[in-house]
């Protein structure tokens, strides 16, 4: 008998895709339970603690949703660029650079600036800076063909180090000299809560998700990105500029990641700090992939992913080592990836046809 993977002629339907995702999640949960049990802990207690930490109370839900905002924003940008088959691995760096610019503008604002104006200025600064950072990879990609997977990855570390320099160097807050923090931005530049403990970033995420749906359905740009990605030759014959799609696709991705960074500063930390993001930009790649790029899917997947992260802290309280939640994350991911990824193939069993000699 031989197992073979064959590419499917058609993409799986939405219903089948949903079923596969659900199957993936169930499989992942079973695997997670197995991992916990193997490590010598009670799986049910652990999973219950995980749930409590992620969605168990209003506070927990708010924390989870807040965490989902930067992940979701970065993921939507990544998915958008991937419409043109561009990989934005550097959302993390664009996020940091956006946070840098947002803080810079925030610190420069007078204390008396009206709040709506101040918040808009801070968010806009982050968005522009994120796009500018992506531009450093987009221009060479468009004109030289420089591999954007590797360049955005390298630029990420440069941006993180830049922020690290600022918060211990020129921007260091003398009052928190032991922590790598900048001075706080004025209260007027802080994005406030909308409901419970959920901050205004959630509205931005919802709006951007709708925007992605609109780009997909109605906008010529969305169509051009997809053609450039799926059939680059056809795109050129059709008069779609490859330089244009590369630049706009990556710039949009960078802008959204930068916006995520600005929201983190404005709504969450209130200042620039080293370790501002625990890897939101990287988580976003996984989220975008798991959601197969669909806007609604991305929002749901980022809430799930954020819940998993926050649930991890609750596990710690239940006496289970926090490292296991990272293992859990990876196991969940790989299981879901495998099940979703296999959707593009069908598995066929062959009886070995005897060729002897």
């Amino acid at each position, binding site marked *: 008998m031989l197992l073979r993977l064959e590419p499917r002629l058609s993409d799986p339907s939405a219903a089948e895709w949903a079923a596969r995702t659900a199957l993936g999640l169930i499989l992942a949960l079973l695997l997670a339970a197995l991992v916990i049990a193997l490590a010598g802990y009670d799986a049910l207690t652990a999973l219950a603690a995980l749930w409590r930490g992620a969605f168990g109370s209003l506070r927990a839900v708010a924390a989870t949703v807040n965490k989902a905002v930067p992940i979701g924003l970065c993921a939507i940008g990544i998915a958008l660029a991937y419409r043109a088959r561009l*990989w934005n691995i550097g959302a993390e760096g664009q996020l940091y650079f956006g946070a840098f610019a947002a803080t810079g503008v925030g610190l420069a604002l007078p204390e008396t600036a009206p709040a709506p104006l101040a918040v808009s200025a801070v968010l806009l600064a982050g968005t522009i800076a994120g796009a500018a950072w992506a531009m450093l990879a987009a221009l*060479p990609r468009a004109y030289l063909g*420089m591999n954007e997977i*590797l360049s955005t990855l390298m630029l990420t570390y440069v941006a993180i180090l830049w922020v690290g320099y600022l918060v211990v160097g020129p921007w260091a807050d003398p009052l928190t000299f032991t922590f790598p923090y900048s001075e706080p931005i004025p209260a007027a530049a802080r994005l406030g809560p909308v409901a419970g403990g959920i901050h205004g970033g959630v509205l931005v995420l919802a709006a951007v998700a709708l925007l992605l749906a609109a780009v997909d359905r109605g906008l010529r740009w969305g169509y051009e990105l997809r053609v450039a990605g799926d059939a680059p030759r056809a795109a050129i014959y059709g008069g779609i500029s490859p330089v244009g799609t590369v630049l706009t696709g990556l710039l949009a991705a960078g802008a959204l990641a930068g916006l995520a960074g600005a929201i983190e500063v404005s709504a969450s930390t209130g200042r620039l700090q080293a370790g501002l993001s625990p890897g939101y930009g990287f988580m976003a*790649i996984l989220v975008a992939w798991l959601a197969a790029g669909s806007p609604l899917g991305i929002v749901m997947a980022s809430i799930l992913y954020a819940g998993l992260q926050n649930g991890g802290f609750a596990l710690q309280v239940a006496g289970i080592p926090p490292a*296991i939640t990272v*293992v859990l*994350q990876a196991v969940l991911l790989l299981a879901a990836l495998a099940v979703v990824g*296999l959707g593009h193939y069908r598995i066929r069993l062959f009886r070995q046809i005897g060729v002897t000699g």
Partner: protein
Amino acid sequence: MSIELLLAAALVSGTPILLAALGELLSERAGVLNLGVEGTMLIGAVSGFAAASIAASVWIGVLGALLAGALFGLAFAALVVSLRLNQIVTGLAFTILGTGLSAFIGKPLIGVPPSATVPRLDLGPLADLPFFGPVLFRQDALVYAAIGLTALIAFYIRRTRPGLILQALGESPDVVDALGLPVAALRYLYVMAGSALAGLGGAYLSLAFTPAWIENMTAGRGWIAIALVIFATWRPWWVLAGALLFGTVDALRFRMQVGGDPIVDPHFLNMLPYLATLAVLALVSRSVMRRRLGVPAALGIAYDREHR
């Protein structure tokens, strides 16, 4: 600080990056982009340290790290070669997996003193040479092993038949297939060998460099190794040169933190490897250069016989 001491420290700092980068080079030459190096190094670091502690032998530790790395690579290869999952996404997931798994396994090892460390080789009179003695001939055994490995891999790729096939594997796997050679099995082999080396690079940190197990002790060296392979345009000797360069940066930063009064902020020093890699990346982007410098054309693409 004397220049000899700096160069000697650069060699030591460069060794874990060199080992991991040589591994990534094998994997990428075979057409598989493995972004899980950071996680693999951590798995190697913790397994190596655990094995060395249990057996009270540093060589058992080295063996354990190689084995653990290879196993981790086997799992990665199963997903990206056989199941053809996306290499980038799976690689990132493996970095997360390696980070968590190593922290979990390493819990009881924190604060444990190393039972054995990698010995220095006694090179007799060579070690007493002025300048060259302290720089080259007073290092530990793994430093020499890493340099020897560079030569071996360079020779293997350029001068042997299996090495030629390895080049084809990353360039045009359909040719390898047409020769009747098993593309998938070969890719498994090189991914596993590469991951074993990444594991060894991690173990160098826990058995010689530090030496102890500390959570997340690789501190981004896996990503530097990935950068280094590009910086070196997929050539073993250039990997060695780059590892020395990046090792010098690492050593300088460390000295500055200790010595105080830095001429340049260590954050900017740390940017150097990434900026240098970006410059090289821009250089190899021109298609003429790409052909001349040998960027593996099939890098990152799963091989599917029916989709040639």
